[in-house]
């Protein structure tokens, strides 16, 4: 037996990470601002998108990820935005190759925002790069305020966090200060948005954040 330190490859670059880099180069070339939206089932990812698309639908495209059905892509198309659905058939997260195939069905020429709605799950999507510019974590008031502390792998990677359904705060024991505080412990540069897709509260700040980033993603 030979103990050969040169035989150890060191940091492993996954096949997925390579495809994600190809996606990222393609997105940069198009001047797209690409978001990977991650949250639990029922946290309001699609409702947040509908609310957002009221402002930016003609300039946006959406990739919807679900285990089954095209219900979400159908909802998104009703806003006037382009949408394509990935049905993973059981997989708990999207991967870069699925996204690369899905965007072939979209016309991205006049698009500034590409939203990728991941499969509802706070765990697996966190560590799978799709080639996005940023991950956005979406958490909602009825889920409880300890989600950032319980799922740190997502919140260290999320550049923005949306605390959704704040219209329910009067009815639920939920400390926005605790949830937002834990987000900032895990990522001191995170942007936190308190929002209700139902009432529209907080949507202005969220959309201006998106517009700022889309502007800097554009080729000059």
């Amino acid at each position: 037996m030979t103990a050969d330190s040169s035989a150890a490859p060191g940091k492993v670059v996954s096949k997925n990470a390579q495809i994600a880099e190809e996606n990222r180069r393609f997105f940069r070339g198009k001047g797209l601002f690409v978001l990977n939206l991650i949250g639990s089932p029922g946290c309001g990812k699609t409702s947040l998108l509908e609310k957002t698309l009221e402002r930016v639908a003609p300039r946006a495209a959406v990739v919807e990820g679900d285990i089954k059905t095209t219900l979400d892509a159908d909802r998104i198309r009703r806003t006037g935005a382009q949408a394509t659905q990935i049905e993973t058939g059981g997989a708990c997260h999207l991967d870069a190759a699925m996204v690369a195939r899905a965007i072939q069905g979209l016309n991205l020429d006049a698009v500034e925002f590409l939203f990728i709605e991941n499969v509802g799950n706070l765990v697996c999507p966190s560590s799978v790069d799709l080639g996005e510019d940023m991950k956005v974590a979406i958490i909602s008031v009825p889920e409880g305020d300890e989600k950032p502390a319980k799922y740190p792998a997502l919140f260290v990677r999320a550049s923005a966090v949306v605390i959704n359904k704040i219209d329910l705060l009067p009815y639920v024991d939920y400390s926005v200060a605790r949830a937002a505080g834990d987000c900032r412990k895990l990522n001191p540069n995170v942007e936190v948005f308190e929002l209700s897709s139902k009432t529209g509260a907080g949507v202005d700040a969220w959309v201006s954040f998106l517009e700022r980033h889309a502007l800097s993603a554009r080729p000059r």
Partner: protein
Amino acid sequence: MHELGMARDICRAVAEKSPGRRVASMTVEVGALAGIAADALEFCISEVAREEGLGDPEVTVKPTATRVKCSCGAEYSTEDILQPCPSCGGYQREFLSGMDIVVSAVELENA
């Protein structure tokens, strides 16, 4: 949840370094934020290594603590990243490791 895919990536990386060689042992370090279960990864690497002709290596997967660099200048390792910097008590910091999978040692069988 992605241990099998990760095991294939790891075995591919090892095989590319030493084409055609059988592996006696390998050590893999997994960051606490990588989203990988150590015992599941160990099992998957053993299975994939056999399937890919790398032999029947003794596989050790070690979870590693997260390295943190604080804006106060302190650098430290932690098991609990929700705890503040032990030097200044603050949270203005960056994580230097924790998300990576590193094959840190490989022992080859004699060719």
